[in-house]
C-alpha cells in the first residue's frame, strides 16, 4: 500500500543519544544547571526484534522513548530510522516519517482523548498518513484493527470512558498499529494493568509482532515480563546503558553488578529456591550531578579506586553481550562479577 522502503540494516539505530534538560531559575530564567536524563545511549533494533530497556525509575528509559519519537529536540547524538537520520529533520520533514514509529503509553486512561470516539481516535493516524482514500476504506481498516486487537467491531462508536483499562490499552495498541509502523515504542505499556490483563496485553503484543514483523522497544521495569517476551535487553542506570545483550545472556550470566542486583530482586515463584540477594544501599544519585567515574560507583558493592575516576566503556563480554564495568579488567580469579553462562534449556 504505502511504499515501504525496505532497508536491510536495523530498523532503528540510536547513536550516542543525549538529552539534557536545562534547569532554569531566577528572574530572567537563566540556566542554573542540567538534568543529564540521557547521557550517551546507543543501541540498534532489528526488524521484528524486541529490545527491552530496563532500569529503575528515573534512569531515563522513558526519555529515550520520547527522544526517539521527537516529542522534544535531543541535545546530541543521532536517531537513525531505516538508515536515514531523523533527529535533524524539520518538523514538517519528519511528519511523514512518524508513520514508521508509533507509541503505546503506560496510563490507559490518559492516553486516549476523553472527548473523541474510538473511531476518531483510530482514524486520526490513518487520515494523517493518507492510508485510506474514503470513508469506506477507513471503516474497513478500523474493522481490521479492532479484530487484530481483539475488540468487537461495533466498539468503534463508543467513548473511551466506556472501556476498562485493558480494553483501553488495546485501543492504544490499535492506534499505534493504524499507522502501519515498523517499530512501536511501548513505554511501560503494561505496568498500569493488573496481572491477568497484563499477560493478555503482552501476549497480544507478541502475537502482533510475529504477524506483522514489528520491532518493539519495550520500556519496562518489570523484569519478569521482559524475560517472557524479549529478544534482547538493555539495562540503563542514570542515563547510560550499563549492559546490553541477548535475553539469555542477561538473565543467565549478567556481567554488570547493577544488572546482577536488579535480577536478584526479581521474585522467583519457588518457595524452595534459595538465592543470594544483592541489596543495594542508598538511593539513585541525582541526574543533575551524576557521580564521577562509573555512575554506579556510589552503590556498587565491588567499587574500587578506578571506578571513581574513570568512566567505563561498554565492552564485548561475549557474542552479542556488552557490559560497562572495570571489574572485567581484573584477572579472572579476582573478578567478583564474572559469571559462567548457565545452560539455558
Amino acid at each position, binding site marked *: 500500500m504505502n511504499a515501504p522502503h525496505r532497508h536491510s540494516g536495523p530498523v532503528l539505530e540510536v547513536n550516542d543519544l543525549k538529552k539534557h534538560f536545562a534547569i532554569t531559575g531566577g528572574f530572567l*530564567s537563566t540556566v542554573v544547571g542540567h538534568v543529564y536524563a540521557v547521557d550517551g545511549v546507543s543501541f540498534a533494533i532489528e526488524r521484528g526484534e524486541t529490545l527491552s530497556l530496563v532500569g529503575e525509575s528515573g534512569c531515563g528509559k522513558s526519555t529515550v522513548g*520520547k527522544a526517539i*519519537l521527537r*516529542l522534544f529536540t535531543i541535545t546530541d547524538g543521532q536517531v537513525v530510522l531505516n538508515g536515514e537520520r531523523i533527529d535533524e529533520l524539520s518538523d514538517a520533514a519528519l*511528519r*511523514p516519517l*512518524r*508513520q514508521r*514509529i*508509533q*507509541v503505546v*503509553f*503506560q*496510563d490507559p486512561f*490518559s*492516553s*486516549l*482523548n*476523553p*472527548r*473523541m470516539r474510538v473511531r476518531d481516535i483510530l482514524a*486520526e*493516524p490513518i487520515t*494523517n*498518513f493518507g492510508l485510506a482514500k474514503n470513508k469506506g476504506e477507513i471503516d474497513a481498516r478500523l474493522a481490521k484493527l479492532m479484530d487484530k486487537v481483539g475488540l468487537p467491531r461495533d466498539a468503534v462508536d463508543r467513548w473511551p470512558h466506556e472501556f476498562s483499562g485493558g480494553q483501553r490499552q488495546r485501543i*492504544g495498541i490499535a*492506534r499505534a498499529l*493504524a*499507522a502501519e509502523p515498523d517499530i512501536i515504542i511501548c513505554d511501560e505499556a503494561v505496568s498500569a494493568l493488573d496481572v491477568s490483563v497484563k499477560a493478555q496485553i503482552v501476549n497480544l503484543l507478541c502475537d502482533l509482532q510475529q504477524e506483522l514483523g514489528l520491532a518493539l522497544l519495550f520500556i519496562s521495569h518489570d523484569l519478569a515480563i521482559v524475560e517472557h517476551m524479549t529478544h534482547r535487553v538493555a539495562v540503563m542506570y542514570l542515563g547510560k546503558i550499563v549492559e546490553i545483550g541477548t535475553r539469555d545472556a542477561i538473565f543467565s550470566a549478567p556481567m554488570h553488578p547493577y544488572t546482577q542486583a536488579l535480577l536478584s530482586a526479581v521474585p522467583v515463584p519457588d518457595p524452595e529456591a534459595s538465592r543470594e540477594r544483592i541489596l543495594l544501599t542508598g538511593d539513585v544519585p541525582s541526574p543533575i550531578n551524576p557521580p564521577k567515574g562509573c555512575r554506579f560507583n556510589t552503590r556498587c558493592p565491588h567499587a574500587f579506586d578506578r571506578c571513581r575516576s574513570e568512566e567505563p566503556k561498554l565492552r564485548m563480554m561475549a557474542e552479542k553481550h556488552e557490559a560497562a564495568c572495570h571489574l572485567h579488567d581484573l584477572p579472572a580469579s579476582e573478578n567478583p562479577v564474572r559469571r559462567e553462562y548457565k545452560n539455558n534449556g
Partner: protein
Amino acid sequence: MTKPLDPTETAGLVVAPQLPDILPDRKPLKGVVGFCRRNPSIAIGAFLLAIMFVMAIAAPYLWTVDPTALAPSRRTRIPSADYWFGTDMFGRDIYSRVVYGARISLIVGFSVAILASIVGLVIGLVSGMVRWADSLIMRVIDGMMSIPPILLAIALMALTRGSVGNVIIAITIAEIPRVARLVRGVVLTLREQPYVEAAIAAGTRTPMLILRHILPNTFAPMSVQATYICASAMIVEAILSFIGAGIPPTIPSWGNIMADGRTLWQVKPHIVMFPAIFLSITVLAVNLVGDGLRDVLDPRMAKKI
C-alpha cells in the same frame, strides 16, 4: 478437581434463604427534573437568572412607566401601591428604573464574560503553545494582574467617555488576565498528556492538534471561569456607575440608581436598597450556576455536603 454435586450430599446442607428486597430499585431520574434534583444549585441559579432575563426583555410590559420621566412634585416617595419601590429625589419611579436596569447589568455581565473568554482563550493558547512568546505574554499579564480589576477599569474609563460599550471594553480588559492564565495552565497540562503526545506521533499537525485535542478540553474550566467573570463584571459595572465613572447617569442602571440614592441613604434607604437586592440576587444566581457547573464538569472538585 470439581465434580458435580451429588444430590444426596446437598440434602443436608442448609440453603441460604433468598435475600429480601431491602433496597428497592432507585431509578435515576431522567430529563430536566432529574438534572435539577442532582444539581440544585444550577437549577436555582438558572431559575433566578431566567426571571432576570424575562424582566430585562419584557421591561416595557411589566407595568413600568418611563424610567427617566421626572416628576419633582412626587419625589422621594416611600413604596406604595402607586410606586411599588417608591420614587427617587427627581420623582422617577424606582420600580421601573430597577426593571430597566436589569438590561444593563445582564448585557454588561454576559458581554464581558464572552469577550474576556474569547480574547483570554486566544492569549492563553498562544502562551501555552509558543514557548518564546510565553514569558513575554505572562509578564504583561502579571503586570495587569497586579492592578486590582476595579482600579484598572476605573483608570480605563478615565481615558474615555462613559457609555455601555466603553464600560464593557474596560471591564473586559481588566478580566482578560484571569482567563488567559487559566487557559495557559490548562494548555500546559494538556500538552504533556499522553494522548496529545500520541497524536503528535500520529502525525497530527499543530493547528489540528490544538483544535481537536487541546481546545475541547479547555472549555470545561473556562466556562466555569466565565460565570465568575460574568458575576464580577456586574459588580464592577455597578461600582463604576456608583462612583460616576461608568454608564451615563441618564441611562438607568443599578449602579446609577444606587449612586442617585447615596446622598439620601440615611433618610430614604429604599432608593439604594431595591437595586442592591436585585444586583445581589443576580450575582448570586450567576455564581450558583458557576459552582454547579464546576461540580458537573469536574467531579473531583465537587464538595458534597
